[in-house]
């Protein structure tokens, strides 16, 4: 009995800890951002109004509440810049995630089929790039992709092109950067599901008359779907809000929502509009997340 009491308290604390964390570092900041998104820009410190002042009394607080409005959200809907930025973000994220899946799946599959001791080596090779700063790796890509960079030198030396190709400031460069940066996030969850899959399942499918492509399509791939879902989410969500890679590698004619946010916040100093854009982005990202949750829940219920 007494031993149970000893363990009960830390256990209860451990159960509460994630909620405390969520409240402190997600809900409270979110409330701030939400409040700013309902404010108006002002040349002041802070650069918006109304400002809630708890010392000014009840009436002042009521007046401040009354001054809140959803004008910024209306602006987001009415101005093409923002709509385009959202659409471009989603398009880029979808394309990049599809590319990541197409490239990451074979790599993860190959890793999972390696002899055990080589799997650990392959795993380290996937993770090693993280040991270098992300920014340095993106700058390295600028070097590789620039006019007289490594890629053009190789292409010229192989006589594949007669003149240097313009890579930098194109969508191609941006996709190269995104796929390169996010590949580990696609590979690792896929590898985890593929590695723990019982090899006998693929053998059973072959034994029952399935040629290799059917073995993959009817058994391996459906059973790896949890890993596919995790990898897709891990890539899709941050890519939608990606700022650094498109800013450094893509052209400036079509902006992603992350770049638009940056512009509103630091160049235009329009905190309220930037906040509203951030809130809309959050809602846009919640939709795929909730869908994924529902699918997973249904799978769990079916399994029961």
């Amino acid at each position: 009995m007494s031993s149970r009491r000893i363990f009960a308290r830390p256990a209860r604390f451990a159960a509460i800890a994630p909620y405390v964390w969520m409240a402190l570092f997600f809900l409270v900041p979110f409330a701030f951002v939400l409040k700013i998104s309902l404010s108006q820009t002002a040349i002041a410190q802070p650069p918006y109004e109304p400002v809630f002042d708890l010392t000014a009394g009840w009436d002042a607080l009521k007046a401040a509440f009354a001054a809140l409005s959803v004008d910024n959200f209306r602006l987001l809907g009415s101005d093409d810049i923002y709509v385009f930025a959202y659409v471009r973000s989603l398009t880029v994220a979808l394309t990049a995630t599809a590319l990541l899946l197409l490239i990451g799946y074979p790599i993860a599959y190959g890793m999972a089929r390696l002899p055990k001791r080589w799997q650990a080596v392959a795993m380290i090779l996937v993770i090693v790039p993280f040991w270098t700063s992300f920014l340095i790796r993106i700058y390295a890509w600028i070097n590789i992709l620039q006019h007289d960079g490594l890629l053009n030198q190789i292409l010229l030396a192989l006589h594949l092109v007669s003149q240097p190709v313009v890579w930098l400031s194109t969508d191609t460069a941006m996709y190269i950067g995104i796929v390169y940066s996010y590949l580990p996030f696609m590979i690792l969850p896929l590898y985890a599901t593929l590695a723990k899959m019982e090899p006998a399942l693929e053998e059973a499918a072959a034994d029952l008359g399935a040629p290799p492509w059917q073995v993959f399509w009817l058994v391996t791939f459906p059973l790896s779907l949890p890993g596919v879902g995790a990898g897709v989410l891990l890539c899709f969500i941050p890519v939608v809000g990606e700022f650094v890679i498109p800013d450094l590698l893509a052209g400036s004619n079509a902006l992603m929502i992350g770049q638009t946010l940056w512009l509103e916040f630091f160049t235009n100093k329009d905190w309220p509009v930037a906040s509203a854009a951030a809130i809309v982005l959050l809602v846009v990202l919640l939709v795929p997340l909730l869908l994924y949750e529902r699918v997973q829940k249904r799978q769990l219920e079916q399994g029961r």
Partner: protein
Amino acid sequence: MAEELPGTNVAADTAGGDAFLAAGQPLLRIEGVAKTFGTFRAVDGVSLDIGAGEFFALLGPSGCGKTTLLRMLAGFEAPDEGRILLGGKDIGQALPHERPINMMFQNYALFPHLSVRDNIAFGLKRAGMPRADIAARVAEMVALVKLEGLEKRKPDQLSGGQRQRVALARALARRPQLLLLDEPLAALDKKLRENTQAELMELQRRLGMTFIIVTHDQEEAMTMADRIGVMKSGKLAQVASPRELYEAPRSRWIAEFVGDINLFDGESKLRDGRRLVIGTRDAGALVVAEPREAVGTGKLAVAIRPEKVKLSRHGPVSEAGRETAINTLDGVIADICYLGGTTTYKVKLDTGGMLQASVANSARLDVDAYSLNQHVVAWFTPDDCVVLQS
């Protein structure tokens, strides 16, 4: 059978194979098959014929190569040497999906994302069977393994015994020429295992199919198989019926591997008609029947199964016993192991050795039982002894 597997060469040839079988050829012929992993020779020159309708067991300790041999029959490993002929056609290098052979996997390997019905139908769909025929065959299989009402369940909603049945139904659905079973009962508890053994035998007889089972459980092999191939270090040590394997093991290793046995090392002393006298260190001179195969004069071992050893307080009792019971050994009971149906006594012989005797507990009350340190006479006939080359 050929129309069930359109588009595969092997299936097309099996029609010819049937004619071949009629000519008295074995269904499966394994010729000098070997497989090496790195420097480890897992299967080392195995040759074996298996007839149609036979229930064959591959028995051996773990690492003896029995599973590798089975995997070569299924097509998961390609033999480095030798040929595998099914109905006269070499299938040694054919891929698993091209063989009219199905396998029941050790842990069943049921597809977790498919229902019982879809698991069973998997192989039929791959064979391009019409939809209506698939439904009929699945229903037939479900009835065969008594899984009615569970068709829509997923494997993780089934008990171990039910999963085993799904695996069996899935492997049988395509009506393979040869069914391979890799330790099919290892995951079941004892009672269920015994019931399932009987069901498997009944099923095999009813379907007239050829079964090859891999097992490390000698009782399982003994119970179910028509013939047993005992494997040791990649080689077939003996291929025989269960009875022959038990009563006439060909080597000391097999005698010790299959069942319990008393072994006395010694040397041939004297030949007297059909009798041989062998002087042993631990049990004195033993008279044994002359073995069918001539044995040398070198070191020999006399083997007697514990249940062939009779015990009594004063020596051989029955009339028949007196005439044939030439080997009588005095000793005291050193250990008693009560097993329910039988009791195993360890007798410390006056000549120095230990002798195990297994006695049926034919009476409920223990009036016939021996007690520790009691003096007894152990005896057995020359015909009950097996002479082995040491």
